[in-house]
């Protein structure tokens, strides 16, 4: 394996990691805050992708100005509706939530299949994103650079929101001790709704990036969801930094394993690595410090 091939694979891995990271952020947030596993999270990604497709239909070649707000708000609203109708009735029952949200994901996938057909809808990236940057022998497509930049921007914004804003302080407070935060006047129910919608919106933004890279189809969310969960598990629940590191690591491992073996073996190798890692650090790279006996 030569160096050009290696760096090409690593670059691809980094762009895959970017989308994984954006998908995992929402999962980590809602899992950390509400102990809720949302199996329909991948469908927010899918929704973002389809909304990008619609934006491209309406707004012509330079559709990105419309696609981002549309995908963010659209997926966020979908998330808010889901939280309001189903998820808030299931607090404290993580396994039941997992089943119910899987049901929702089936419904959303079938709805997408009937609305847009089961084959993928293509989105043509704007002209200014169509070229590629050549560094030595390695070709870095602008689209993938754009996706990486997108992930970095969202990650920075999330960090600011969580660590510098009043909203973020409330989120961290509820994350540490829900009852105590509520007693001190934090409206935890409203916060749950907001955080869930925010996570969904970020997944929608990831959907824009996804649409630029590959055609959007009804099962695109399902394809990402398991790996996004692995990112959360490896990173440590509720840790933005852990999620970022884990996404990059898993993206690299997948890209390398795919380059060296085959796509089917790469998935198996990735899983072996993750299970081995969990033997070493069962609570992820950056576990939340807690004195609770059971904190998951």
């Amino acid at each position, binding site marked *: 394996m030569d160096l050009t091939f290696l760096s090409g694979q690593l670059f691809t891995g980094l762009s895959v990691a970017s989308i994984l990271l954006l998908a995992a952020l929402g999962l980590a947030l809602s899992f950390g805050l509400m102990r809720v596993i949302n199996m329909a999270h991948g469908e927010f990604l899918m929704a973002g992708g389809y909304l990008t497709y619609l934006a491209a239909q309406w707004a012509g070649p330079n559709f990105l100005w419309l696609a981002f707000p549309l995908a963010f708000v659209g997926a966020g609203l979908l998330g808010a509706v889901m939280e309001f109708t189903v998820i808030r009735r*299931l607090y*404290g029952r993580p396994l*039941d939530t997992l089943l119910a949200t899987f*049901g929702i994901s089936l419904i959303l996938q079938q709805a997408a299949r009937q609305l847009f057909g089961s084959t993928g809808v293509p989105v043509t990236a704007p002209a200014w994103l169509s070229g590629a940057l050549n560094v030595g022998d390695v070709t870095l497509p602008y689209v993938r650079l754009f996706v990486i930049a997108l992930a970095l921007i969202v990650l920075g914004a999330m960090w600011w929101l969580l660590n510098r804003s009043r909203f973020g302080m409330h989120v961290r407070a509820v994350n540490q001790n829900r009852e105590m935060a509520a007693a001190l006047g934090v409206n935890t129910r409203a916060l749950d709704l907001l955080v869930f919608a925010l996570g969904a919106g970020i997944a929608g933004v990831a959907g824009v990036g996804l649409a630029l890279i590959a055609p959007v189809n009804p099962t695109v969310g399902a394809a990402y969801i398991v790996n996004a969960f692995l990112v959360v598990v490896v990173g440590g629940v509720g840790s933005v930094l852990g999620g970022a590191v884990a996404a990059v690591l898993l993206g690299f491992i997948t890209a390398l394993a795919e380059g060296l073996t085959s796509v089917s073996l790469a998935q*198996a190798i990735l899983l072996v690595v993750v299970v081995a890692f969990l033997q070493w650090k069962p609570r992820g790279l950056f576990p939340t410090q807690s004195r609770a006996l*059971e904190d998951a």
Partner: protein
Amino acid sequence: MTPGVQSGPVPGAGRARVPAVVLATGAVLVALAFAPLYLGAYPLALLGRVLALSIAAIGVSVVWGRTGILSLGQGLFFGLGGYALAMHLKLTATPKGELPDFMVYNGVEKLPWFWAPFASAPFALAMVLVLPAAAAGLVAWLMFRRRITGVYVSIITQALLLAFVTWLNGSQGLTSGTNGITDYQRFLGIDLRGPNVAHGLYWLTLLVVAAALGGTAWLLRTPFGQVLTAIRDNENRTRFLGFNPAAFKIAAFMLGGLLAGVSGALYTVHLGTISPAMIGVAFSIELVVWVALGGRASLVGAAGGLVLGQLAKDRISSAAPDAWLYVMGALFVLVVLVMPQGVAGVIARRRAPAPSVPASSPVTREVSDAV
């Protein structure tokens, strides 16, 4: 998982109610035994197939309903059992000294090493039991040794299944890939499509279902079963009482894997084929939902929920294929919201006065345990 919050009372667990359950189950099994006399060929084949699946549901009931471990990867163990038998059937259907047809198409020149022993029927039959149980034991050991619990277990089992299915799909020459193993019809010298074989296979399946139900029910009434319940309701308290929860959970998981493997092997014979699509993520989660619908804490409820659910699926999906996924998705949500203990739970609550423990509680953490 939050201890003590998720699980309600165990329906049908009170000793006084057991005889009624046993009588009703016995009556249903007897009625089922006479099914070949009044059912046509297609309904009988469908019923036999679905009964074979219900054995896997009994396993889910032990692992999830009784021990509190939600595995979303039962298809892995189901598939191991199914493939173990299918490999034997395929080798039997292949003339001596030749390779199975799909290997020839894929340019494989020598029988892979792991195929060779499956030419022996006793070996293959043993592997139907050993492979799934050993795989389940290994997976469980890796997870429970490090106290990985709750939704993590669900995610890891699902990911494992996904990796297995992806590998099966990608290994055309070794496993026949997406097409799966098919085109076989003789087992132990019996032509599986012979005139009276359908009835025999049906009765055999029913016998295995009855044995699995009876054997598991007996096992769960022993102290072993009581420790499993204790682990589900509060794992830490069980640990402080001096039990090693990991060992019991591994044993329960192995039992669930074993039952799934037997189920997979029988299903393979019924359907005459096994493929990655049959054991994938959708299959494994569907299995869990039928168990939830029937009542996960009740063995009979789990098996019954699966049988009725699969029969309904056959009807609805043949009448309106597009509607099926909506029905299925809505069922997931409704079962969880309206009947968390399933149909068996509703029946048990009718028969017994309201339990003192609330079925669900709005708090996300049990404060007394979080100290």
